[in-house]
């Protein structure tokens, strides 16, 4: 039994199943983060006093993290084009995909891990100074929102690592389907990136 349109686009809708599926998933994710941002707006709007955010959090660290994540979106995008522009696998060195693809994918994963490392350092700094989620609602929102975001990042890193590792099998049998998965992973990663930029602006700068 074959399910139609897993790789080829359906002529009258112009998309294939995974592309439509990932966009729908992302729309739901936007509603999730949108709800969290709304909660932030409502709580901050109703608060008598609000801490000076940029003095509580470290703007330079946040900025570095923003740069890392933007860069990782670039590397993942380049990885996808490297994959798409390579000829279909005929054996030999191409068995694991083009070399540039593997390097760019690995760089994406490492950049993601670096982001998480800095994030963990930041959290630890706060906790060590007794600034915990229950201290005030700003810190509560900070930990919750960056925590949900970090969980999304962990998920993305695991998927990317799987796709670069055991998931590569699909490249040898159905290269187009494999490229489709990378394309979906990239869309997800871009969303996580965009959400972070919004978090950085709202939590660190505003």
């Amino acid at each position, binding site marked *: 039994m074959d399910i139609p349109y897993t790789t080829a686009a359906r002529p009258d809708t112009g998309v294939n199943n995974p592309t439509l599926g990932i966009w729908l998933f992302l729309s739901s994710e936007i509603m999730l983060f949108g709800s969290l941002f709304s909660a932030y707006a409502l709580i901050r709007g109703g608060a*008598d006093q609000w801490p000076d955010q940029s003095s509580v959090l470290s703007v330079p660290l946040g900025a570095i993290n923003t740069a890392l994540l933007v860069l990782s979106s670039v590397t993942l995008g380049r990885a996808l084009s490297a994959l798409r522009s390579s000829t279909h696998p005929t054996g030999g060195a191409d068995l694991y995909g083009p070399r540039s693809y593997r390097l760019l994918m690995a760089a994406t994963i490492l950049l993601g891990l670096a982001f998480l490392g800095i994030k963990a350092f930041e959290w630890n700094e706060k906790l060590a100074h007794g600034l915990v989620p229950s201290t005030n609602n700003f810190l509560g929102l900070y930990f919750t929102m960056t925590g949900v975001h970090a969980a999304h990042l962990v998920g993305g890193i695991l998927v990317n690592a799987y796709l670069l590792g055991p998931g590569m099998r699909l490249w040898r049998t159905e290269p187009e389907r494999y490229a489709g998965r990378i394309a979906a992973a990239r869309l997800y990663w871009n969303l996580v990136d965009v959400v972070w930029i919004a978090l950085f602006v709202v939590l660190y700068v505003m």
Partner: protein
Amino acid sequence: MFRKYLFSTDHKVIGLQYALTSLVFLLLGFILILLIRWQLAYPGAPVPVVGPWLGEANAPGGVILPEFYNQLAAMHGTIMVFLGVVPLAVGAFGNYVTPLQLGAPDMAFPRLNMASYWVYFTGGVIMLASFFVPGGAANSGWTSYPPLADIATSGQTWWLAGILLLSISSLLGSVNMITTIVQLRAPGLTWFRLPFFVWSQLVTAFLLLLAFPALQAAALLQGMDRLAGTSFFLPSGLVVSGRALSVAGGGSALLWQHLFWFLAHPEVYVLILPAMGIVAEVIANNTRKSLWGYRLMVYSIFVLGFLSFAVWAHHMFLTGMGTAVSAFFQATTLIISIPSVVVLSALVLSLYGGSIRFTVPMLFALAFLPMFGLGGLSGLPLGLAPSDIALHDTLYVVGHFHYLVAPGTIFALFAGIYYWYPKITGRMMNSTLGAIHFAGSLVCMNLIFMPMFIQGLGGVNRRLWDGGQQYAHAQELARLNIPMSHASWALALFQLFFIVNLFGSLKFGRRATTNPWHATTLEWTATDSPPLAHGNFATPPRVYRDAYEYSVPGAAADFTPQNEQAGS
């Protein structure tokens, strides 16, 4: 074996898994309310028969404690909505029927489908397990309003965990459903040839996809309040049991209500839309006519879907959110009643001039129309802020939404079960047992829910452990609880006819032909009953005509299948 029945990726097996699990949950939610009905009719009297099994902590000597009553009420709502009706309407019917009506070999993402069921199942198990933790299950109502829910016993944390899983399950399911409907329609099955049931599933899936994340976020925030000591929903200066709560404060209890109802109002339409879809199928089939105003109905449910995101705060007129906000939500609420009335009117008009076959599914579908109408019309006074101020939190509200969901949606679900049973099993359900089940349920449900309007108009509040007897104004009206409760137990007895029929017909039911109802849609005309195990169709069907070509003048029979070529 495991792959075939337990961890199957076949949409039909997953649909049946959803069906059985959600029916068990419906029964369970029903049993909880039977206990509540005992307490309301005879407050403080020990529960007969099952009393000793309820546990000393819950019901010493069989007498239901107020704390346990709160658990029963909160979990009745939670189980019925999140674990019973929606999974049956969307998970079971959506999963089983939609790909067959589309002429598709399966759902677009079969493994995601399996994951969706098992996440739902785990969420359900967590909800049930919460009855056995210290302090029992969640007891702050199915709406889990803080600050109460923030400081409630640990069952509330389990409730939040369960809700998170259920929202993940519904996310996976709705992505799958939309992709399937958009991408896997058979050749020739253009948008306006889709059966109305498919449209209803499409709009429902969009509501689940975009509304549930709000509750997900809310559940995360409440989880932080409960576990990490944040005060997102706790205002400053809160006093609990005479002592000031030692939290940072500064939060907003209203925030929870906004996030909760942003999900829960669209969720109301998630309960209703698939029911409308099922009723439309059954009515077209049993009037032997095409639906009156099919396109109008499709447009209406789209309007319904969009507007359902803009009415949520009509649940909050009494919160002091301000008259301007109230006026806005009152206006949208009255506007949303228009498409609902259009759909209902179209269904009623579809009956006109038909030669109606009074089959069991049709009986349920016919009863759905006035019952749903009653539920909808009784909602109008609640949508208007001035009258809602008097009626809010009374039994009138309980009567209103139970008319929509019980003799409304659940009747439609019964109609669907009787209608598609031969498709699933290859056998018919017994129609005598079905008619008894129908008549008994219809009478009993009205005996239970109609007096609630009277009690509510008399000012009796809901969620009262003694049914309101401590209030002078409720003394007279509380007496109605006795016949209401007797009707609820009679309702339970009539469900036995259904249960016997459901399982007995597997063995003793009359063998069904492939298309016993002489229907036109693909699930009946392009594959056997029961359908092929994998892939559904021996040859992929092709569609040549609209969904409901019944009684077409000049046609060979009074129905023309969608996959029948012109001139053949």
